[in-house]
C-alpha cells in the first residue's frame, strides 16, 4: 500500500458535507461524533449525580445499625436504582458512547464513524431510557438489586417492568453503538493505520464493540422474557409452572459478566494512552496489551456462572468456571506488568491525569486480586452474600473504571474545549478522591469477612463503627467528585488555553487543533509507524496543513 495515496480519493474519506449551522442541527440532533460524545458525557455525568445521591442515601442509612433514614423497602429501591444507574447510565455510556465517540475515530484518522446517523439515534435512546428508569420510582421502583433475580423481581412493584423496558432500550442503544464502532474500526482506518499501529485506546474500543453487540443482545432477551413474564404471565422464570429462576441468572450473567469487561477494557485503553505520554516512554509490550484485551474479551464469555456458585450450580460445572475465571488474571496481570514497566525508568510528569492513572493501577490491582479470591469456589461460598463483594466490585468499577474515566477527563478535556482543566484543583480532587474512595470501600473487605450481609437495610450493631467510617469517607469522595465537576464547568470558560497538544502526546487527536474541527482532518493523514516511539519524529504524513493552514507542496508528477 502506498502511503501517498491519502490525498487521492473521491472515496468515503473525502466525502464531506458543509458543517451544519443551526443550533439544533449542530448541538442537539448532531451527527458529528465529537458532539455526540460530549452529549453522552454530559448526560452520563448528570445521571452520575443522581446515582451518587442515591449512594449517599445508602451510606447515610447505614450509619446506624438500625437504619433510620428509610424503610427497608425504600432502601431496596434506592440501592437497586443506584446499581442500575451506575452500570448502564454512567460507566458504560461514558466509556463507549462518551470517550469512545469523542476520541477513537480521530485516533484512527477517520472523519466520522461509519454510520453517523445511527450514532445520533444511539445517543437519543439513552436519555429517555434513563428517565424511564427514574420514573419507575413513581410506580414503585425495582427492589431486587441491579441483577433483579426472580422470584423476587417477579413479585416486585410495577416499576420493575419499567426498569426492564428502560434497560432494554439502553441495550438497543449499546448494540447499535457496538456495530457502529466495529465497522468504523474495521473499515475506516487511515491509510497505513494497520492493526498493530492503532493506539491502545482504539484497541480497547475494538475489543469492547463486539461485547456490546453480542452480550447486550443476550441481556435484551433476558429483559424481554422478564417483562413478558411479569406483564403477560409467560412462565419463563416461574418455578410453580415449570419455569426456572436459575435460567434468568444464566441469561443475565451471560451478558453481565462480559459487561464487566465492557466497563473496564476502554478504561485499560485510556490508561495505556496516559501512562506513556506522561512518562515519555514507549508503552511496554504494546502487542501484549492489545492481545491480552482480546484474551480477556474471549474468556469473558466463558465465566458467567462464577456469579452463581451459591445458586445451586452443578458441582461438575463449578470447577471449570473457577479455573476459567482464574485464567483471566493472567492477561490482566500482563497488562498491569506492562503498565508498571512503562513507568519504570520513565521521566514521570505528575499531572492530574497521570495521578488518576497511577491511582487506577493501585486500586484496580487490589480489586483484581479480590476477584481471584472470589473465583475460588470455597471462598466465594463464604463471601458471596457479604460486603466483601461490595468492596470488590467497587474497587474494580470505581477504583478501575471511574478512575480511568477521570484520568481521561483531565487528559482529553482540551480536545473538547480547547482549554486545560485547573491542575491545582485537580490534584486536590485526586487526593480527596483517592483517600475518600479507599476509606469508603477498604473497610468493607473486613466487614464482609466478619459477615455483614449486603443488600440489607439494617445490620448487627457490632459493625456500626466501621460503617460510620465508610460513610464519613464517602462524603470525602463525594466532595472530590463535586470539586471535579466544578473544575470542569469553571475551566470551560476560564481554563488555560491548551493549544493543540498540551501534553506533547503522539496519537493523532493531538495533531489537530483543540477543540477538534468539524470533519477532524483537512486531509486524511497516512500513518507509517505505531504512535509510541517518543524519540522518533511523528509517524504521520499529510498533516502539515492542520496546524499551519498552509497546504503541503504539490509533489512532482510521476
Amino acid at each position, binding site marked *: 500500500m502506498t502511503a501517498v495515496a491519502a490525498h487521492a480519493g473521491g472515496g468515503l474519506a473525502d466525502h464531506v458535507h458543509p458543517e451544519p449551522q443551526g443550533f439544533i442541527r449542530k448541538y442537539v440532533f448532531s451527527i458529528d461524533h465529537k458532539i455526540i460524545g460530549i452529549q453522552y458525557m454530559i448526560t452520563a455525568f448528570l445521571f452520575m449525580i443522581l446515582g451518587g445521591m442515591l449512594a449517599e442515601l445508602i451510606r447515610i442509612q447505614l450509619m446506624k445499625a438500625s437504619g433510620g433514614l428509610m424503610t427497608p423497602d425504600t432502601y431496596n429501591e434506592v440501592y437497586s436504582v443506584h446499581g442500575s444507574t451506575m452500570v448502564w447510565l454512567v460507566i458504560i455510556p461514558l466509556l463507549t458512547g462518551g470517550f469512545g465517540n469523542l476520541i477513537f475515530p480521530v485516533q484512527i484518522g477517520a472523519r466520522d464513524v461509519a454510520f453517523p446517523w445511527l450514532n445520533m439515534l444511539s445517543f437519543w435512546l439513552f436519555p429517555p431510557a434513563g428517565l424511564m428508569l427514574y420514573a419507575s420510582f413513581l410506580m414503585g421502583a425495582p427492589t431486587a438489586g441491579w441483577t433483579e433475580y426472580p422470584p423476587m423481581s417477579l413479585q416486585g412493584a410495577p416499576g420493575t417492568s419499567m426498569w426492564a423496558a428502560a434497560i432494554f432500550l439502553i441495550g438497543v442503544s449499546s448494540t447499535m453503538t457496538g456495530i457502529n464502532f466495529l465497522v468504523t474500526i474495521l473499515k475506516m482506518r487511515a491509510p497505513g493505520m494497520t492493526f498493530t499501529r492503532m493506539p491502545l485506546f482504539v484497541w480497547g474500543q475494538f475489543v469492547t464493540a463486539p461485547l456490546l453487540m453480542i452480550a447486550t443482545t443476550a441481556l435484551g432477551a433476558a429483559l424481554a422474557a422478564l417483562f413478558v413474564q411479569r406483564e403477560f404471565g409467560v412462565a419463563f422464570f416461574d418455578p410453580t409452572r*415449570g419455569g426456572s429462576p436459575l435460567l434468568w441468572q444464566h441469561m443475565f450473567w451471560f451478558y453481565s459478566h462480559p459487561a464487566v469487561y465492557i466497563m473496564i477494557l476502554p478504561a485499560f485503553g485510556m490508561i495505556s494512552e496516559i501512562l506513556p505520554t506522561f512518562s515519555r516512554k514507549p508503552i511496554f509490550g504494546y502487542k501484549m496489551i492489545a492481545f491480552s484485551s482480546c484474551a480477556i474479551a474471549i474468556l469473558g464469555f466463558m465465566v458467567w456462572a462464577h456469579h452463581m456458585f451459591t445458586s445451586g450450580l452443578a458441582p461438575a460445572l463449578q470447577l471449570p468456571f473457577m479455573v476459567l475465571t482464574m485464567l483471566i488474571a493472567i492477561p490482566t496481570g500482563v497488562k498491569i506488568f506492562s503498565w508498571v514497566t512503562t513507568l519504570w525508568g520513565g521521566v514521570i510528569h505528575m499531572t492530574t491525569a497521570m495521578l488518576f492513572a497511577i491511582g487506577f493501577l493501585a486500586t484496580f490491582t487490589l480489586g483484581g486480586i479480590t476477584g481471584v479470591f472470589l473465583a475460588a469456589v470455597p471462598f466465594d461460598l463464604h463471601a458471596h452474600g457479604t460486603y466483601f463483594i461490595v468492596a470488590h466490585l467497587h474497587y474494580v468499577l470505581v477504583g478501575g473504571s471511574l478512575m480511568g474515566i477521570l484520568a481521561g477527563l483531565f487528559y482529553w478535556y482540551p480536545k473538547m474545549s480547547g482549554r486545560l482543566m485547573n491542575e491545582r484543583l485537580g490534584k486536590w480532587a485526586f487526593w480527596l478522591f483517592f483517600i475518600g474512595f479507599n476509606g469508603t470501600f477498604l473497610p468493607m473487605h473486613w466487614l464482609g469477612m466478619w459477615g455483614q450481609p449486603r443488600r440489607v437495610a439494617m445490620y448487627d450493631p457490632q459493625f456500626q463503627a466501621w460503617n460510620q467510617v465508610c460513610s464519613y469517607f464517602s462524603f470525602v469522595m463525594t466532595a472530590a467528585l463535586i470539586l471535579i465537576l466544578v473544575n470542569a464547568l469553571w475551566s470551560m470558560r476560564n481554563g488555560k488555553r491548551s493549544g493543540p497538544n498540551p501534553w506533547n502526546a503522539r496519537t493523532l487527536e493531538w495533531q489537530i487543533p483543540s477543540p477538534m474541527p468539524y470533519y477532524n482532518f483537512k486531509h486524511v493523514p497516512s500513518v507509517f509507524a505505531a504512535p509510541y516511539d517518543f524519540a522518533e519524529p511523528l509517524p504521520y504524513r499529510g498533516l502539515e496543513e492542520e496546524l499551519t493552514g498552509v497546504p503541503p507542496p504539490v509533489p512532482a508528477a510521476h
Partner: protein
Amino acid sequence: MAVASVTHGGYAPGMTEEPDQLYGETRELRIQGFLLFMVSDLVLFSSFIFAYLYLRNSGQGWPAGGPKLDIALASVNSIVLFGSGATMHFALENWKHRNFTKFANWIVMTIILGAGFLSGQVLEYMHIGARWSSGIFGASFYTLTGMHGLHVFAGIIYLTVLLLQAAQGKYTFTKYTGLTLGTLYWHFVDVIWVVLFSIFYLL
C-alpha cells in the same frame, strides 16, 4: 485494507469512477454493518433457544409425550418459506441482469410466499391450542416462533418498500445496496427457521 480508495490510485475531477468509488466503499460499510446487525439478532434468537433447551431439560413440567405439533403442516410451511428464499434469490439475480419486470415479478412472488408462511403459522397456532402463558412450552414455542413470525412480517414490509423504491428509480442496475441488504435479511429469516423447525419439530 482500511479504505479501498487507496488501491484505486488517483483520480482527476470529472472522471467517471469518482461516484463509483464512493458507492463501493459505502456499500462495503453498509453490508458489514448489516451483517453485524444480523449477528446480534442471531444472539437474540440464540438466547431464547438456550432458554427453551434449558427449560425443556430442567425436568419440570415439560408436557409428557410432547405437545401436539403438526409436523406435516410445518413441513409444507417450511417448503413455502424456503421457496420464498429461492424466489428472492431470482429477484436479485434478475436485477443484476437488468431486468426490472422479472425482478418485480419474483419479489411479488416472494412476498406472497412469505404471507403464505405466516398464514400457515396462524393455522399451526390455532391447532396447538396452548396459550403463551400456559406453561413453559407455550413460553418457548410462542416466543421463538412469534419472534420469527414478526421478522417475516417485517421482511414482507421491507420487501414491499424495496419494490416501491425500485419502481421509483431509487436503485440503478449498478447501485443497489438496499436490495442486497433486503435479500440478506430474507435469507437470514429463512436460516433462523431451519433452526427453529429442527429444535421444535425434530428434536
